[in-house]
């Protein structure tokens, strides 16, 4: 059984300018100890997916349908109290911006002791300090940093602290929402290495949300490509990257720079669609080089192709 299974999840935002469909029927499975990458442009719904799993969507968002099964329980039907138990202990999340995801007036150790207290761990101060120090050291942050404030640390260190906080209660699933976007390339590589280590030492499953195909290639077992609130391709990372089936995945890969690559970078023409009125048929058709009349009128279903799922009429 998969650890996490998202079935046909539909989420919409009600804004002043109308209703926006953020997720239109997304399904996803994540096995025990697996790392799944979620890739897509801005506005493709990948962050909404992460928030919807933890039920932390903003007030103006509505979950219109679908299920989020975590260890067989549908998270969307749980009481708020039960959900609070799950957050942090079973599913943890790390954010994009390490500069604002730690409370500026709390020392690092206070972040940890609060987390322990919140989940009734009942540690004494010394025990909490020891446990927090241990996990910080595993994340490559010296133990002494426990007594420092976030502003005394660098962005990379703060992100390490944030990951340590995420892992402090040994959750089954870690949702990493663009955690390297605010960091420079060198620190980004270190954090990715850290996550690789984490999956081996902690056996944590990771849902790795990013727009960077390169990171997914390094880290994820499987990859989900999202476009305009829908999944367009899902499969083993190696397969998807070596032989992409969906034109969008192809275009995405062609726009990633490669060292020693001779080909010119191919930008994807056009913009992501206006989600107040998504295009009929295949949502990618206005930007797709292969689009035909069928694509404009008929929505391609997500169908199995070998051991991969792809939503294209011509794949």
């Amino acid at each position, binding site marked *: 059984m998969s650890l996490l299974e998202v079935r046909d999840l539909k989420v919409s935002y009600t804004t002043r300018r109308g209703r926006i469909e953020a997720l239109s029927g997304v399904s996803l499975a994540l096995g025990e100890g697996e790392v799944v990458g979620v890739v897509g442009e801005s506005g493709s719904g990948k962050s909404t997916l992460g928030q919807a799993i933890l039920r932390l969507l903003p007030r103006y968002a509505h979950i219109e349908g679908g299920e989020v099964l975590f260890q067989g329980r549908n998270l969307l039907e749980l009481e708020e109290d039960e959900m609070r138990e*799950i957050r942090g202990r079973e599913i943890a999340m790390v954010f994009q*911006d390490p500069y604002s*995801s730690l409370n500026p007036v709390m020392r690092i150790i206070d972040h940890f002791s609060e987390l322990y207290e919140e989940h009734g761990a009942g540690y004494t101060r010394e025990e909490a300090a020891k446990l927090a120090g241990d996990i910080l050291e595993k994340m490559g942050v010296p133990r002494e940093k426990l007594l420092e404030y976030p502003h005394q640390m660098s962005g990379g260190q703060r992100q390490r602290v944030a990951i340590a906080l995420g892992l402090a209660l040994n959750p089954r699933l870690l949702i990493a929402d663009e955690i390297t976007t605010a960091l420079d390339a060198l620190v980004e590589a270190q954090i990715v290495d850290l996550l690789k280590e984490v999956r081996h030492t902690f056996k944590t499953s990771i849902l790795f949300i990013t727009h960077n195909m390169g990171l997914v290639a390094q880290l994820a077992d499987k990859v989900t490509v999202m476009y305009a609130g829908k999944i367009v391709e899902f499969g083993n990372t190696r397969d998807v990257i070596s032989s992409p089936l969906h034109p969008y995945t192809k275009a995405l890969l062609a726009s990633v720079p490669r060292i020693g690559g001779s080909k010119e970078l191919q930008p994807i023409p056009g913009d992501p669609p206006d989600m107040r009125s998504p295009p009929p048929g295949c949502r990618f058709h206005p930007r797709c080089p292969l689009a035909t009349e069928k694509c404009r009128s008929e929505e391609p279903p997500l169908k199995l192709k070998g051991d991969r799922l792809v939503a294209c009429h011509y794949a």
Partner: protein
Amino acid sequence: MRRPKTFGEWSLLTGGVLTGIVVVLAVFGQYLAQGNVTSSYIYVDSRPVEVPPLLPPLSQVKVGEETRVFYLGTDQLGRDVLGRLLAGARFVLAVALLSTLISGIVGTLLGLISGYTGGLLDRALSVTMDSLYSLPGLIIAIALAALLGTGLWNISMAIAVAYIPSYFRMVRGNVLSLKNMPFVEAARISGAGPLSITVRQILPNTFPSIASLLPITFADAIITEAGLSFLGLGIEPPTPDWGFDLNKGRQFFLAGYWWIGVFPGLAIVVSVLGFLLLGEGLNEILNPKRWEI
């Protein structure tokens, strides 16, 4: 000790000295002034001796063997102006402290609740607070003092209500911007409930702005208290009080008995100035955002 360099250090030093003097005099005043504070008599060898009224400063009164000096003179009823000045400091400071604490705590709590929960409650509280804020503090305090009556607690409450909106508005504004910060969401993701988020994540982040408002409220409360007792809404006579004495002194001022009113007035000015300078200096020195680079 090195000389203060910046404006902040100067105001801290001056404010600290002035406040220090006022506080020391308020606490130890009764041991310094031996004069009659509330009655027209001084007791010499447990015999009451009437003090002549309207004595100018530095007058000496000889009673038998003993000589008493009235450094700041006596008022229209023969009471020691210095003694009343020192005794009055206690009341003023107590009222200012109490009302600052009450308004700070109540305003902060309401601001936290209002900002965090939002919705109808937030609307209602904001409208109430804004309408309170639109009235001058002294007017609210007068109205409430008239309603509640005199006395330390009543006066403090009346003044406190006038300052609650300042704290409410500031804290609510802070909360509104803080509650969407990623670290708050991070706490929520790690399973924190609303109470823990407001108290442990948001509240400590509002302390810097609260701290910069406290001395201002304190100084303002001194003026408001003086204003109330000037109008006779403060404390029951004959308990010494600066505002009350200032008002009485005003009636005798043009007749040439200037010392009755001038000294309480000066005391008000000095203590308000002291607390404002202290607050400004602390703010300048403790708040990194105001450091000059």
